[in-house]
């Protein structure tokens, strides 16, 4: 990052005036497109479909948790007699649903969907490039994502059911079909799907990094990049450094499963027989998994934080407060995220001193996170806030980031982790801080950049309804889970009626399920609004939100190469909102400084 302050902008202003308007076929325009805008839409639509799969799954297990062992036509409709006889979910299917729900949400929606959509859409636009560095690799990245989605979905239909060892697939459970039926073909498909997914993430990530570093337009110094690009850039770096580790971990697991190696297995007696595996360590897998797994949390979260930084500044009509501190905190969070993975493993029997080190590094993350929160709040202070649906979701993100971040401080404390590890407290924490924050960021991005994607506007009133129901339900679902967890209830339990100890809190599950169903129904509003607006939405103007960034200087109708003439030249940072002495309350980045005007860097 030494180039942060000094990097001269890559000059890329060779006229693209020749306008080769060759007609594109349907296939090359909509299917195997190499255009970043189309690829971003492909990622988004795939992610919306995957998200619905995961939401329907969550409703099925929420029904079981609220009314254990009761039959539901809804469950029976999707799972049939084999997995839900008379509509009563079976315990192994419950675990499978929990596993695939987590996998889809974390990887396919909040990684592929979020980064894939917005890195593709925004990086070339906001750095002022005609497209990604490699359109072809970018196309491969999407199609690898598509194939991995298909593989993951296909695992739902195999004999033994899909993978059901939890989204963290800890061996030996994930390695031994004798232990759970989902660890048979289902797990093989899970690992295959993830291998292809990782290829997709790497192809995409390398492309994003190269594009940000090399294809910035004239004047676009690193310190003039919008925070979205900064966040997506660091996210790509995290992905490129950490995903290969998950690939290796999964491949070793595959070898243990198929070829009888013993990387993760040792001294196991199952199905009435001692196994031949000797000398491996299941804990090794956890180290490898979380070496990806923790940066993954920030791979999910940083793009959302980047999007909200942009949306909050634009809609507050005010510069983001502390631009450089925001970049610094992204860098700090990105760096620290690589040295905290052990906090997922405090109770695996790891050396207590090692645990202390992870406590220290983990709690350090609270500092850049706090800086971000206070900078957001200060940006709102004395703003002139346009409360668009995107802005509401961004404020929602700050609220969930606060709530989930604070409980993270409890979980990061190794001693306190002992009694609440793997309880519902953890479920509450990461759903709020990672799930809700990231999905709110994604919604903010969709509402904000929909006109940039489709040249039309989404319906604002439906957006409001969508936000308020979703926002209230997010807290309705996940806030009570803290209490269920503090009462000692473990996660991934099919039912809590086998003991009396949770009777006092377990009625909360009904409340949670009520909010979960309402929240899920609210997503119908969104889905309808999204697809309806693609074709029937009101036509958008060039710069609907009066924003400063370069994507709004490109014509409304998406065009190959993004700008008809030469690439725009950048003269200022992206946050000159309500700058004193200006007639308008925004000054786009491509507007030169006036005589005597001082350039500001946050």
């Amino acid at each position, binding site marked *: 990052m030494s180039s942060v302050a000094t990097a001269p902008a890559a000059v890329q202003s060779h006229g693209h005036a020749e306008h080769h308007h060759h007609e594109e076929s349907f296939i090359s325009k909509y299917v195997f497109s190499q255009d970043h805008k189309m690829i971003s839409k492909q990622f988004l639509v795939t992610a919306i479909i995957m998200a619905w799969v995961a939401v329907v799954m969550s409703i099925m297990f929420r029904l079981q948790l609220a009314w254990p062992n009761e039959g539901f036509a809804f469950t029976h409709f999707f799972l049939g007699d084999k997995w839900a006889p008379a509509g009563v979910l079976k315990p192994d299917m419950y675990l499978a649903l929990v596993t695939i729900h987590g996998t889809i949400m974390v990887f396919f929606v909040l990684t592929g969907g979020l980064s894939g959509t917005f890195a593709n859409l925004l990086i070339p636009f906001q750095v002022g490039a005609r497209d990604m560095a490699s359109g072809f690799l970018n196309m491969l990245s999407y199609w690898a994502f598509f194939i991995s989605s298909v593989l993951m979905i296909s695992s739902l239909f195999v004999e033994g059911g899909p993978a059901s060892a939890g989204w963290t697939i800890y061996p030996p459970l994930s390695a031994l079909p004798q232990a759970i039926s989902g660890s048979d073909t289902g797990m093989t498909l899970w690992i295959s799907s993830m291998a292809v997914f990782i290829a997709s993430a790497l192809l995409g990530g390398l492309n994003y990094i190269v594009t940000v570093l090399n294809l910035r337009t004239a004047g676009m110094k690193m310190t003039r990049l919008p925070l979205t690009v900064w966040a997506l850039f660091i996210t790509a770096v995290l992905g490129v450094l950490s995903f290969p580790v998950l690939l290796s971990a999964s491949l070793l697991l595959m070898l243990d499963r198929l070829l009888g190696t013993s990387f993760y297995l040792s001294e196991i007696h199952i199905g009435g027989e001692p196994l031949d595996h000797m000398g491996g360590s299941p804990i090794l897998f956890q180290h490898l998994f979380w070496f990806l797994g923790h940066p993954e949390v920030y791979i999910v979260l940083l793009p959302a934080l980047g999007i909200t930084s942009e949306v909050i500044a634009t809609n507050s009509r005010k510069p983001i407060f502390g631009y450089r501190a925001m970049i610094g905190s992204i860098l700090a969070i990105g760096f620290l995220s690589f040295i905290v993975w052990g906090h997922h493993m405090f109770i695996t029997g790891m050396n207590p001193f090692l645990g202390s080190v992870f406590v220290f590094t983990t709690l350090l993350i609270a500092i850049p996170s706090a800086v971000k929160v206070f900078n957001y709040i200060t940006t709102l202070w004395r703003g002139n806030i346009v409360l668009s649906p995107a802005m509401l979701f961004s404020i929602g993100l700050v609220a969930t980031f606060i709530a989930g971040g604070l409980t993270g401080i409890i979980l990061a404390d190794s001693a306190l982790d002992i009694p609440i590890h793997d309880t519902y407290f953890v479920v509450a924490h990461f759903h709020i801080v990672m799930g809700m924050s990231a999905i709110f960021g994604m919604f903010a991005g969709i509402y904000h950049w929909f006109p940039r994607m489709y040249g039309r506007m989404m319906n604002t009133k439906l957006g409001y309804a969508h936000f308020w129901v979703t926002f209230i339900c997010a807290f309705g679902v996940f806030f009570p889970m803290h209490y269920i967890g503090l009462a000692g209830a473990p996660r991934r339990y099919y039912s809590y009626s086998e003991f009396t*100890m949770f009777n006092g809190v377990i009625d909360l599950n009904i409340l949670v399920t009520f909010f979960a169903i309402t929240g899920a129904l609210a997503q119908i509003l969104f889905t309808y609004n999204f697809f309806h607006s693609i074709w029937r939405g009101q036509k958008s103007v060039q710069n609907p939100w009066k924003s400063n960034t370069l994507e709004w200087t490109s014509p409304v109708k998406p065009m190959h190469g993004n700008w008809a003439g030469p690439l725009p030249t950048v003269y200022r940072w992206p946050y000159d909102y309500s700058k004193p002495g200006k007639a308008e309350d925004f000054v786009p980045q491509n507007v030169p400084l006036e005589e005597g005007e001082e350039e500001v860097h946050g």
Partner: protein
Amino acid sequence: MMTLLILAVIVLGILAVTRLSRVYELTAALRDKREEEISDRDSKMNARLLMAFPFAYFAFFLWLTVHYKKHMLPVSASENGVWLDDLMNFNWAILIVAFFITNILLFYFAGKYYHRKDRRAYYYPHNNKWELAWTIVPAIVMIAIIIYGLNVWNRITAAPPAGTPQVELYAQQFNWTARYPGLDGKLGATDFRLINDKNPLGIVTPGSIKERLDELDTLIAADEKRLVNEDAYLPPDRKDELEIHLTHERRVAGRVVNLRTLMEQDIAEKGEASQYKYGADDIVVKEFHLPVRVPVELVIRSKDVIHSAFMPHMRAQMNAVPGMTTRIHMKPTITTDSMRTIMHDPAFEYLLLCNKICGANHFNMQMPLTVEPEGAYNVWLAQQKGFETGGPAKTEAAPMDTTQAKATTATAMNETPALPPGEPKKN
């Protein structure tokens, strides 16, 4: 029927939304209202809602806290847990303050500064003093949290004093087994290849090895015989399977023979102090009892997949990992009976739960833990049978055994044995 109803509701819902939004679009078109022009009226309405939200949010928080307080875990039943609860309260005090301050600022500003055409936002790109303040203040708070937290962590995870009595917890799909050292106060060595119906934990003793080898020989002989006798009928794939299985059995038998050699050497060298001599009197039970106010080290192992020994009332948890031994130590401070009084629940039991996803019946992998006065505990322990020494055939000798066991256990609990505790065998 139900399916149809649900589908109908969904379809009708979508239709209603469609129609409503169409009406909205038409009226918007009539009024010449454009989507990107968020009217000040809309901003104001949402600003009001944002201002109102924290009231609902905090009310929900308070309601949950007040209403469910009595259903949270009761007072900690172990010494570690008391430290943890104090630490937890310290953290909550800080976090709740931060929670209220940040949320109030967030929603108040978001609600107060909504868009009005005649206003202009205050151009305020940065302020080093403020930024320094909210870097340093969280840093100081974090330092306090880290120091206190690690202090408790170090106390809890410090090595137990030499001679702390050991109890083993053995996890498997989907139940727990406990193992107590017998008269010698030490747990014997184990090997997973010795596991069978009679020896569920695979305790290694000369007797158990011999029995297991006999069993393996019988199995191998039976399979060999089958391969010869049924050669004509067995389909090829079934035959391959049988041959693979036979190879596996022979390999296991070979390893057990190696183990026997190791054991014999060890016994020859160390005599009665050999870890293979400790196992015969170990007590293997499906019950879990602990004496109150006696520190105990729990030795945790797993037979198949990762489990986690979670005792919420003790605030204690440790994973059970196949292929390795994990340990925690704790001192229960409240007996089950006293806790029944505290909880006003005569049926109350402490529970040992599995807290790491381990298979279909993960949700019901539990064992009650009985904490009782030392005397009652010793009586209970004395009634249990040794792995090899206390078979049912010796019932008439029980009274004598009891007194002996009592005396020895009491010794084990109060004094420091000279020898290190028996390590479960690791290859």
